[in-house]
C-alpha cells in the first residue's frame, strides 16, 4: 500500500527583496519608529489635552473602570423590590437548577401570605457563574450583576454570602433585567 504523502504548502516562496532580509528589516524598523513617534506625540497630547485624546488603548485599571457589557455574568445578587422587600418567593427553583448546588434556601411566609426566604445562602466558593438561577427564576428575583471585584478572599468563610449581603435595589439592576427579558423571552423556545 502506497503511503499517501501530502506536500504541505508552507507558503515560504519569498521574493528576492524578501530573501535579502535587510530591506524588509528596515521596513519593520520604520513601522516601529513611526508607531513610537505617533505614540510619543499622543503622550504629549494626553498631557496637554487630557485622557480623551489618548491613542494607547491600555486601561489604567484601578483608576479607570471598564465598561461592563450588559450580558456579563458577575456575582449573582437578589433583587430588592421598591418597597424594600425581597422579590424572591423561596420557590427553590434556583436551588434545584444550580449545577454545583451552591444555593440553599429556607422559605417562610409573611403575615399577608406572601412567601419569602427566611435565609438565602449563596456559597461563593462553589458558584460557577453559569446564570442558570437567573434563567430559571420566575420572579426575576436573582440576577447576575456586573460586579466582579472583591469576590476573592483569603478566608473561605467570608465567601459564603447571606441574604442581606446579596440584596441589591432593583433600580441598580434595571439594565440587566431589561437584558434578560430581551434574551429569554425573545428566544424561540419561549414563544
Amino acid at each position, binding site marked *: 500500500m502506497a503511503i499517501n504523502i501530502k506536500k504541505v504548502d508552507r507558503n515560504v516562496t519569498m521574493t528576492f527583496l524578501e530573501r535579502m532580509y*535587510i530591506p524588509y*528589516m528596515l521596513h*519593520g*524598523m520604520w*513601522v*516601529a*519608529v513611526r*508607531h*513610537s513617534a505617533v*505614540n*510619543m506625540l499622543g*503622550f504629549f497630547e494626553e498631557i496637554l489635552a487630557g485622557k480623551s485624546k489618548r*491613542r*494607547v*488603548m*491600555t486601561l*489604567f485599571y484601578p483608576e479607570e473602570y471598564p465598561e461592563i457589557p450588559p450580558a456579563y455574568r458577575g456575582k449573582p445578587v437578589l433583587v430588592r423590590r421598591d418597597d424594600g422587600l425581597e422579590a424572591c418567593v423561596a420557590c427553590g427553583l434556583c436551588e434545584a437548577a444550580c449545577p454545583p448546588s451552591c444555593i440553599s434556601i429556607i422559605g417562610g411566609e409573611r403575615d399577608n401570605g406572601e412567601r419569602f426566604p427566611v435565609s438565602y445562602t449563596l456559597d461563593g466558593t462553589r458558584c460557577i457563574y453559569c446564570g442558570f438561577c437567573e434563567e430559571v427564576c420566575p420572579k426575576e428575583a436573582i440576577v447576575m450583576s456586573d460586579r466582579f471585584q472583591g469576590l476573592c478572599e483569603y478566608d473561605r468563610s467570608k465567601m459564603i454570602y447571606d441574604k442581606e449581603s446579596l440584596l441589591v435595589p432593583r433600580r441598580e439592576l434595571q439594565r440587566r433585567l431589561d437584558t434578560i427579558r430581551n434574551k429569554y423571552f425573545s428566544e424561540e423556545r419561549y414563544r
Partner: protein
Amino acid sequence: METVIALIKNPMVIEFIVTMVKIGFIFGLTIGFFAPMLAWVERKQSAVMQDRVGANRAGVFGFTVIGLLHSLADAIKLIFKEDFIPRGAERGLHTLAPALAVIPALVVFAVIPFGGQYTLWGLDVNLVIADLDVGLLYVFAISSLATYGVVIAGWSSNNNWSLLGGLRASAQMFSYEVTMGLTVIGLIMYYQSLSLVDIVAKQENFWHWGIIWHFPAFVLFLACAVAENKRVPFDAPEAESELVAGYFTEYSGMKFVMFWTAEFIEMVSISGMCVALFLGGHHIPFLTQKFLLTALGDIFGPDWGGVVVMLIGVGVFITKLVILLVLQMTIRWTMPRFRYDQIMKLGWKMILPLSLCWIFLVGVGILTGVMPTP
C-alpha cells in the same frame, strides 16, 4: 603641608588622579547611568513602539517619573532576594561566572577614547583610560574572555537549559568573534593603525569617517555586535521561549543583575567601539577641534576653553553612543529571533565571505588610490 603640596605637584600623582577620575567617569557612565537607563528604555521604548503604556507604577510618594523609578525598585528587590545556588551546582564556578561576564564588558572601555587630547593648565589630558598601540587587538582579546563567563555559568548550574544556553552561546560568540574581527580589518588597512586613539584622531575630517568609506563594514560590524551581545534577533543562548533564560536560568538576586548589567554594558561598550571606529569618536562633522579651541578659547580663555571643548567632545561621543543604542534597541524590538542554524549560516556563510570581499575591495581601493587614506 608643603610635603602634601609637593606630593600633589608630582606628575605621577597628577596622572594617577586624572586616570582615577577617568575610570570613575567610565564607571559612572556605564554602571551608574547607562545600565539603569537602558533597563528603563528597554521597557518604555518597546511599550511605545507596540502601542502599550509600559512600566509606570513604581513611584515615591506618588511621583512615578514616567517609570524611571522601576530600575531603582528592581535594584532594591533584587538586592533583597535570596542568592540561591541549586543543588549539584559547582559552587565556586557558579559564583565566579557573573563576575567573568561583567568584567570583560567593563574592561573593554579602557581603550575606547571618549574624547580627544587636550592641554589644560599645562597638563596633557587624553580622554582614554589606556592609550594602547594595539587597542583593537586588546578589545577582541578581552571580549572573547566574556565567552567564559557565559559558558561557565551554563556548565556550573547543573541545569539542562543552562547547559544548552552555554553551548549555544559559546558557538555563537566564537563564530561571530571571527567575523567581527574580519569586518574591522578593512578599517585597520585604511587607517594604518591598531590604536583606537589614532583611528579617532584620523577621523577629524568628516570625509575620513569610517562610515563614509566603510559603510558595508559598518553594517556587518553592527550585525556581529548584536550577535556578540546575544541580543534579539541573535538571542538563541538565552531564548526565553525555548531555554527559560538560557545560561542564567539558575541565577537569582544580585548575580542575576550582574548578567543583566553585563548585557547592557556590553551593548554600551560595543557601541563605543562602533562610534570610535565608524562615527568619528568625539568629532563633530565639519568642525575641527582646533577651530573649536580657538573660537571658545577667545571667549573662556585657553584653559577654560579647553575644558568646554572637552565637555563638548564627551557630549558628542555620548550622543553618538545613544543614537547607536537606540538603533540597537529598535532592532531588538522589531526582529523575531533567528533559528540557531540560521545564526550559524548567517555568520559563516554570509558575513564572513562578505567581510573577506570587503577586505579585498578596500585593498584594491587603497592600492589604486580610489580610496584616499587619511
